[in-house]
Every structure is written in structure tokens, then in C-alpha cells.
């Protein structure tokens, strides 16, 4: 599928989606609410996106952006799905029932950025100690005891 065909296909699934082709992959920006149905359609529909090869988050100070890199092993095609979340209450539906690998990746985003994934089966901290306070990869993270600021 060409990028134009993918854009057309995704517009039928999520009409509010916007696109950005400046990077290596086609970037698709959707809202947090329409992410889960779109992901389900991408996995099970004709795109056959059966491989989630990266799940991460970016702090833009005004908002958080969830980033999902998807690939299809049958078509060798990769796309990026992004969804903005607000900083005060970042909540998004989990995708770990679609791609099992998201279970740990979402736990990492949870401990580093404080994003809450609804319906996640086991949302605990992944690497940090259970009593760790704060979200260390947020831009406004402060730790006067351990951190030496430059």
C-alpha cells in the first residue's frame, strides 16, 4: 500500500486523524479516544499490523504524546500512530490485549511518565523501586537528593 492509500484507509476508520509525512514513516495523529478502535482495525483488518516494535511517550511540557510504531511482517510496512494526552490526567486505553509486548512497554511508560493505561492487567512499576516518587522522564521531574543539575 502506498502512503496515499493508507491515509485514505485510515480516514475511513478515524475521520479526525491528521497525517505527517516528514519523517521516515507515515505519522498518524489521532485522539486518545479513537486510538483503541483504530489499533484493533489495523491489527485485524487488511493492514495486518501484527508487530508493535516500539511503544513510548514524549513530554512536550504542554502535553504528553503517546507514540506507537507498528509494522506488518507480511507486507513489510511500518507506520507511526500518535495520540496527545493532557499532563494533569494522562489516561489512555491499553493495547496489550492486541500486542502482548505492550504489557511491559506500557508499564515502563507508566513508571517513567505516569500515563495511566486503563484495562491493563498488571499496571505496576517495571524497573524502579515500588516506593519511587515522581516520574523521572517528565521534564519537570525534580530530585534534589540524587540529581545534580547542570
Amino acid at each position, binding site marked *: 500500500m502506498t502512503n496515499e492509500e493508507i491515509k485514505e484507509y485510515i480516514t475511513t476508520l478515524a475521520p479526525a486523524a491528521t497525517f505527517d509525512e516528514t519523517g521516515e514513516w507515515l505519522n498518524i495523529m489521532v485522539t486518545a479516544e479513537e486510538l483503541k478502535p483504530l489499533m484493533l482495525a489495523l491489527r485485524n483488518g487488511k493492514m495486518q499490523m501484527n508487530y508493535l516494535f516500539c511503544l513510548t511517550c514524549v513530554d512536550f511540557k504542554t502535553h504528553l504524546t503517546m507514540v506507537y510504531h507498528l509494522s506488518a511482517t507480511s507486507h513489510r510496512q511500518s507506520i507511526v500512530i500518535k495520540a496527545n494526552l493532557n499532563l494533569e490526567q494522562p489516561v489512555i486505553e491499553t493495547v496489550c490485549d492486541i500486542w502482548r509486548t505492550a504489557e511491559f512497554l506500557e508499564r515502563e511508560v507508566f513508571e517513567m511518565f505516569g500515563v495511566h493505561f486503563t484495562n491493563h492487567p498488571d499496571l505496576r512499576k517495571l*524497573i524502579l523501586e515500588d516506593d519511587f516518587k515522581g516520574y*523521572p522522564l517528565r521534564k519537570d521531574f525534580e530530585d534534589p537528593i*540524587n*540529581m*545534580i*543539575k*547542570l
Partner: protein
Amino acid sequence: MELKEKIAGNEPFPGIVHDTPGGGIVVSTFDSIINWARSNSLWPLSFATSCCGIEMMSTASAKYDFSRFGFEVARASPRQADVIIIAGTIVNKMAPVLKRLYDQMADPKYVIAMGACAISGGPFFYNTYSVVKGADHIIPVDVYIPGCPPRPEALLHSLISLQEKIKLGMTREQIRGEFKG
């Protein structure tokens, strides 16, 4: 002759040999014989936390071969090791593990801090929430090697420096023992 030179290279065994017909008598002190024996058979702990560990493995393997200096028996158990080479970054979660390993080692024990991370946190000194800024915040260090990572030659140099330090009775433990006794 400088004391250091004397101990470092030119004296195979500490003491003075008095030649007698048919052999000789060695006059020495127990302390220097013990130090000589200890310094030539230091067993390192197989402990590495990041890329410095790769250099340490290289130093252990055929090209650099630290067994030439008595370090060949890398132990997987702290109870059998004499020296711990802190090869790599110590993060906050690793700190209690390192402390426990050090506590489990039998006396006399020695510590080498290998590389920038083990000395000061190195590249992770600023703006990080997870890295200990120097392994000497946790356990006492005898020899520091700068580098990121240090070359195998530098590790060999530090190992030989540690031997010299033991032969001179200048390690932390030996000095502490002297004050006690």
C-alpha cells in the same frame, strides 16, 4: 634504591639471603612474606555492570592475560574472591547488591574502581535520577583507574599498582590493622 622500586620489581622475595655452605638462610619478617604471598595471588570477583566489563574480559583473555600477574582465578562467589573490580555504572538499585557482595568477601579484601562511572558517575554525573556518583559512596576503594572505558593496559597497571600497595603495606585494611595492633 627506592623502597617502591625495591618492592615493585627488583626483589623476587622479600628478605635478605645469608649464604652458608650448601645453601643459605633467608632473614625476613612474616608480615612482608604474607604481603608478598597475598599480592601474587589475588582472585578477582566476576562482577561487571556495563561496558568496562568488556574491557575486563579482554584483559582476562589471551591477548592481555592478567593471569600473568596472579589474577587468573576469577571467582563467581564473593566468598572466594580477594579483589572486586567495579567495572561499570553503579545505579541506586545496584548499590545494596554491591555492598552485600563486599560484605560477603573474606578479609583481606581489596577494591578497584574501574572507569569514570565507578569513580564519579562519569557521563551520568549530571541530571540523572538513578546513578550513584562514585562507588566509594558505598564501599572503600583502594585503586582508581580513569578512562571510559580504560584500556586493558590501564587495568593491568592498576592491578600491578594494587600488588605494590599490598607489598608496601599501604592498603586501607593494612593501615587500619596497624593502628589496632
